[in-house]
């Protein structure tokens, strides 16, 4: 029944060598040996279609799906650590993690569909670094830290340094994203929110906005963070504008001003789906919406 000769069939991706790495060390070793021509294969929800369209044609694929050491969720006092190859569905279902870092589940609700989240990984989405993707925005807003491993050792990069351009990160070709450190805020009244506009739910966002707010018992803001996706070459956070919210009561006017100030700083591109002007408009509207929603959640805690 099995066809004897594979040479006569049409295959979409260009040929490549394949190795299933059994450990992080083996994956790093393969990357060190094959350099630029090698690529890591995690969930494959972006890389495989790109290879099918031959937009990329790596000569060597290092499959990291079977490395158990890259799949974990650890909840610590002031943070959550997630192994890079942890499936998005695992994070989505984790109640204790959601309590600690609620923005993750809120962001994942907008990511693709059940079938893609069952396979797609947290680290894969970050390393792919699509400027309108949800997890990179959550990482940028929360100031996540990425632990990168290579045969030479380990280094840690802040989200701000990690995302260097559209679909580009500061990772070197011989590095493997090992784990992501998500800071958790300890204030009792903390709320977060994620919202976006896309053509259909599950598509990439035209613009996405995420926010996290902490308030004291009197309703005064003690910390704020927010950001925008799809509004520039990388996901954007606005720490200076967010700092101006601290000490206020987060009235609508104050929140809307901050959102507007952030939108003014963005330089979105335009395409068939949304002009640059429309995206900048959305940036202001969605940032305000995310901030208000986060504020309401913080107030209700």
């Amino acid at each position, binding site marked *: 029944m099995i066809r004897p000769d594979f040479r006569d*069939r049409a295959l979409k991706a260009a*040929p*490549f060598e394949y190795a299933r790495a059994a450990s992080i060390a083996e994956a790093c070793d393969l990357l060190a040996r094959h350099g630029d021509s090698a690529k890591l*294969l995690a969930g494959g929800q972006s890389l*495989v279609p790109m290879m099918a369209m031959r937009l990329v044609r790596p000569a060597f694929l290092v499959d990291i799906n079977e490395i158990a050491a890259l799949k974990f969720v650890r909840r610590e006092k002031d943070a959550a650590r997630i192994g890079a190859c942890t499936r998005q569905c695992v994070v989505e279902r984790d109640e204790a993690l959601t309590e600690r870092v609620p923005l993750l589940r809120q962001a994942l609700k907008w990511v693709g569909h*059940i079938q893609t989240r069952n396979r797609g990984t947290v680290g894969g989405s970050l390393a792919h670094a699509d400027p309108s993707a949800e997890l990179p925005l959550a990482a940028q807003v929360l100031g996540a830290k990425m632990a990168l491993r290579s045969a030479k050792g380990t280094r840690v990069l802040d989200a701000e340094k990690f995302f260097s351009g559209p679909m580009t990160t500061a990772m070197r070709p011989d590095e493997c994203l090992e784990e992501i450190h998500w800071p958790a805020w300890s204030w009792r009244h903390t709320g977060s929110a994620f919202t976006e506009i896309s053509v259909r*739910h599950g598509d990439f966002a035209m613009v996405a906005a995420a926010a996290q707010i902490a308030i004291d018992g009197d309703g005064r803001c003690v910390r704020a963070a927010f950001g925008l996706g799809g509004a520039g070459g990388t996901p954007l956070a606005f720490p200076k504008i967010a700092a101006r919210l601290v000490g206020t009561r987060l009235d609508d006017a104050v929140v809307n001003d901050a959102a507007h100030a952030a939108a003014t700083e963005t330089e979105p591109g335009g395409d068939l789906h949304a002009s640059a002007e429309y995206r900048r408009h959305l940036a202001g509207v969605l940032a305000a919406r995310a901030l208000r929603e986060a504020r309401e959640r913080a107030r209700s805690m």
Partner: protein
Amino acid sequence: MSETLHPISVEVNGKRRSSQVPARLSLVDWLREDLYLTGTHIGCEHGICGACSVMLDGESVRSCLMYAVQADGHRVTTVEGLANPDGSLSVLQDSFCETHGLQCGYCTPGMLIASQALLNSNPNPSEAQIRDAIGGNLCRCTGYQQIVEAVRLAAERIAKEAK
């Protein structure tokens, strides 16, 4: 130069299937062309349409976004694996017939896999949960309404049978 072939052994619908595959062979091509399990359909081949959905270790995934070599050592359920052991239609499949949940049938295998995966983890889904579960599967005929009805009907019938 001939391409390297990788030996794989995958449990497909309860049976162990082994073969030699080039690394770039997608899981769906292996299922259809090598195992002749043509129930799984190929639509867009880049992860948009959901027609090629299968269960991998019990979770629904897109089989066009995986290489067959990656399924080595894992368990795959295709639409052929949903029927009853005697070959008769499962409750879910029969419910699709009952409510006219298909017209051309192209999306149906993916819809069945997505809905079966939902019912396995949530035997009593709300309409919103059903719509979310099939949200990654495109249908151009039914307008989705009858598919949602089919899944609801199947859930009710399974609950009744369990009593």
